[in-house]
């Protein structure tokens, strides 16, 4: 296994003359990745199949691998049962607000923790990171009371508020900034730049890859977040898609195919964004990695 890994982990120099070996080792790489990819994707393939079956077929004890008839109307039912479009809008709104806010707040804080000196810096960082250690359900009632006290129930503000502040994001950005060369800042200081200008004009652009990673994770986390929106919204059209979907699962009667169809519909936007962002990330990494 080591040899295959090694073979694959090595970056061939750009002007490599190793083309002779390339074909063979790539085949093995493809096989391994394909098997892995199949295992990753298999449950989704099945989910799609289930979304096109009838409830009986899904519930039947011996699984049906292909429905008798493709039940495309399950997807239509989703739109009937849920205010899909307004929930999609809510999800998008929440996600965008959160991501933008986190990028701003976490890069600034991360930079300060990484590159600026001030009293209690380490202790404050530890305190901020410590919030990651508590199970999120422990925050539920307290956060609800705070949000309710502000009168933010059933508002976008209430939905996004706690998620605007991320310890994970701060941690990520801090580690990105920590590793940057000090010379750049020194140079800027000599040139008379204020700390903000240094941050904005020099350090921030260098952190783009990490910002992309932060963006991807925030988007995903926001998109799939369930408990908080469920508790804070009582109006169906104020709920994001994740919460709206969950309401399709009743207590004794679950229409599985419709649930699966809804889940596929909810996954689609994020998947598309990821596919699009993915190229950006790779390009961004490729261009900025070698300054």
């Amino acid at each position: 296994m080591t040899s295959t890994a090694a073979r694959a982990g090595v970056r061939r120099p750009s002007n490599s003359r190793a083309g002779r070996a390339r074909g063979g080792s790539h085949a093995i790489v493809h096989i391994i990745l394909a098997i892995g990819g199949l295992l990753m994707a298999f449950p989704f393939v099945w989910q799609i199949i289930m979304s096109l079956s009838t409830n009986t077929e899904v519930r039947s004890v011996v699984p049906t691998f292909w429905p008798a008839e493709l039940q495309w109307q399950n997807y239509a039912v989703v739109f009937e049962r849920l205010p899909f479009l307004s929930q999609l809008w809510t999800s998008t709104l929440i996600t965008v607000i959160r991501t933008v806010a986190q990028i701003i707040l976490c890069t600034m804080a991360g930079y300060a923790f990484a590159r600026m000196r001030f009293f209690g810096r380490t202790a404050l960082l530890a305190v901020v990171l410590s919030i990651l250690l508590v199970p999120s359900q422990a925050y539920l009632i307290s956060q609800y009371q705070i949000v309710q006290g502000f009168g933010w129930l059933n508002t976008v503000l209430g939905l996004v508020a706690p998620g605007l502040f991320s310890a994970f994001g701060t941690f990520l950005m801090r580690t990105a900034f920590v590793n940057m060369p000090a010379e750049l800042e020194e140079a800027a200081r000599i040139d008379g730049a204020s700390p903000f200008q240094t941050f904005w004009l020099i350090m921030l652009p260098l952190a783009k890859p990490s910002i992309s990673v932060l963006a991807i994770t925030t988007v995903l986390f926001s998109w799939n977040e369930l408990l908080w929106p469920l508790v804070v919204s009582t109006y169906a059209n104020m709920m994001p898609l994740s919460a709206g979907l969950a309401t399709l699962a009743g207590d004794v009667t679950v229409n599985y195919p419709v649930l699966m169809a809804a889940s596929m519909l909810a996954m689609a936007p994020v998947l598309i964004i990821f596919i699009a962002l993915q190229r950006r990330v790779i390009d961004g990494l490729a261009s900025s990695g070698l300054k």
Partner: protein
Amino acid sequence: MSVASPRNRSTPPASGRRGGAAARNDGAWPWIFVLPLVGGVALFYLWPILQTAFFSFTTWGVFGGATWSGLDNYARLVTDPQLYQALGNTLIYTGIVLLGVPLAVWLASLLNTPGLRFAAFYRVLYFLPYVAMPTAIALVWRIIFNGDFGILNYVLSLVGITGPYWISTPGFALIAVSIVGLWSSLGFSMIILAAGLKNIPPELYEAAELDGASRSRQFRSVTVPLLSPSIFFVFIITTISSFQLFDLLYALLGSKNPVIPKTSSLVFYFYSQGFISNDKGYASAIAIFIFLLIGVVTIVQFRLQRRWVTND
């Protein structure tokens, strides 16, 4: 190792004390940068934690009204067999999911093979589990793991193994949950590691190759050490999030599953004490326990990283 230090931008040595500027005080600037985030964190997270800490010393009525009970909850905590069982289950789960980290390193480096066609396609495939809606995908996994009619046991039977009843046998249920946990977290780790890999300049591999290093030696001496900050990061994040196992357990095993009391995780135990048995004081003590536990584990990991993570 005297390779020229590369510019690892997005890969972290988490205890960076570098940044070598002389001891200077930036005045008010740091506070301006830090305050919005810290203010928000303090209001929405630290305050609730303090509340939780306070309530752990009380006996809470169901909907409010706390009466001071000192260390009672903690005394109960220390001798609670269910807590230790939940702890053990969580540790096993975390251990199995962490096995995904070396796996992710391997797969990420495979994915990084230069000139690999369909790399973007593979990347999407591996990332799919992370994008999924947990509730729906857990249902699919339930069907896969079904003891009598599930695909997994069918495949096992083809090689002559009689598969167990995965989600209804105590030990195997935990393994089933861990498999799904591993499956869904692999993609995320791979993304972080991919970013780290991209930052290893090809010149290093060239230099190593010119020095006569075999490919496996290159992997060991160039890739792994330079990737170690990212690996460490992934390690920490995976550990912390594995300790928070809850939704997956619930969704995969089902709420009426007799196996649940024996397979519960720490957070699940917290939830069941707090929201089902309505003993919020005790649940708060459990939350504080989890907090301290993960804190200690994380600190240990930070200490250990000096041994194997290369920072420049």
